[in-house]
């Protein structure tokens, strides 16, 4: 038996192409900015106020500005065009790339699989995440652990920066780590580990409570993913502008 013969790829009359297009444009812009900043290798540390951009934290190799290396410099200077962030970026990028939300976003926007619901995808074959390379998406859990460690580092940076007084930069760093923390906590893997994997919530009241809280955040995972991503860029931009002395930090105390 055959399916109904309907030639049109979709009969949707709304602007279904708009969300994937916006997503695509947004992700592209941010990638370009992030790539540029990564390979710029400069303006990531404001010595006067101890602002370190999250993109360069932790700064672990020998070419780092020494004061920005809060955890020492266990790595030698990186060869060629490589810059300090390349050490941590695989983890950050890995976390976001394997994130369940971002997967949805780029499968739809970049790979058109599917571009929107009930709109035919252009690919002849589809195996989803059943085989290499996409099967590696299952490693999200481990990226979550790594990202959680990096988040702690960012929080540490933020706290350190308060040692010099209080400026707009401090507040920006604070909002940034809050958003990052909310995003990381709202992660589906986190939800699973916090309590989702249990069969009997009633036997683990504390973990049930944690699961309920994480679930609330998890409802907003998409919003947090975007908010934290955009805000990381803005934070970085702010630090870069202050570090390059294009603008000066607005100070409240000291």
């Amino acid at each position, binding site marked *: 038996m055959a399916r109904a013969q309907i030639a049109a790829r979709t009969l*949707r009359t709304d602007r279904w192409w708009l969300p994937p297009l916006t997503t695509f444009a947004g992700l592209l812009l941010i990638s370009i900015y992030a790539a540029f900043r990564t390979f710029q290798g400069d303006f990531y540390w404001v010595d006067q106020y101890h602002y370190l951009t999250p993109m360069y934290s932790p700064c672990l190799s020998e070419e780092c500005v020494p004061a920005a290396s809060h955890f020492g410099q266990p790595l030698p200077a990186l060869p060629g065009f490589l810059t300090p962030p390349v050490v941590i970026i695989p983890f950050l990028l890995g976390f976001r790339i394997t994130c369940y939300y971002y997967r949805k976003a780029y*499968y739809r926007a970049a790979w058109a699989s599917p571009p929107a619901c*009930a709109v035919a995808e252009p690919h002849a074959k*589809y195996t989803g995440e059943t085989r290499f390379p996409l099967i590696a998406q299952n490693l999200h859990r481990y990226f979550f652990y790594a990202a959680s460690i990096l988040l702690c580092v960012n929080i540490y940076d933020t706290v350190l920066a308060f040692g010099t007084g209080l400026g707009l930069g401090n507040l920006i760093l604070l909002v940034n780590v809050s958003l990052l923390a909310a995003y990381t906590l709202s992660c589906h893997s986190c*939800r699973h580990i916090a309590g989702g994997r249990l069969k009997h919530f009633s036997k683990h009241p504390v973990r049930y409570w944690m699961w309920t809280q994480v679930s609330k955040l998890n*409802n907003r995972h998409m919003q947090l993913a975007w908010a934290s991503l955009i805000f990381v860029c803005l934070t970085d931009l702010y630090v870069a502008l202050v570090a390059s002395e294009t603008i000066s930090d607005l100070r409240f105390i000291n």
Partner: protein
Amino acid sequence: MSYQGKFRVWRGDDSGGGLEDFTVEVNEGEVVLDIIHRLQATQAPDLAVRWNCKAGKCGSCSAEVNGRPRLLCMTRMSIFEEAETITVTPMRTFPIIRDLVTDVSFNYTKAREVPSFQPPKDLAPGEYRMQQVDVERSQEFRKCIECFLCQNTCHVVRDHEENKEAFSGPRFLMRVAELEMHPLDTADRVDQAQDDHGLGYCNITKCCSEVCPEHIHITDNALIPMKERVADRKYDPIVWLGNKLFRRS
């Protein structure tokens, strides 16, 4: 309050068919199914449509309205402009029988492949004790009215007929999750989900959740938690290494 609405309805069967134009009266408060019924009563007595409760409870009247998978009885006419031409087509993913009626037996076949609830052997009827917080997750999935709109929308089978063999679709992966989270089920569901029901095909693009008339969070609450359980078991390198080293199966 009534007006003449313009409709295009797919008519035909597995040998072919196409969209036919109709002009039908539309009254205040009506839903698309009312219009289809008026068509049957006045212009096309043999127009085939499947329905039952007309209250969004049975999941019979699934079709596509302006290209979007929906229940005909829960799609109010007031969401459209009066001048708009409304296109009504059968679900695309399943073989056509006639007009708006499709052959949904794929779903019944898949349902049969999910091993049933396995209660603990030592509990007699009446002795079951479960806490509300423990049953709530599975209860959400049991709200499913089996309209199969999610199955219809999921691109894994909608765009790839050949995947029907390996992939049970969101409805039945959710059934596996329901049993996995059932406080008294004793069977192991995790490997089943991945190996027998094709959980890996799902790329969590959430169209199933988008169309579900019961607003079940299929992806967030069933599919992703199942993927996480599979990750616990299959992709945990430490477990994997342990299994390799000590030849556990």
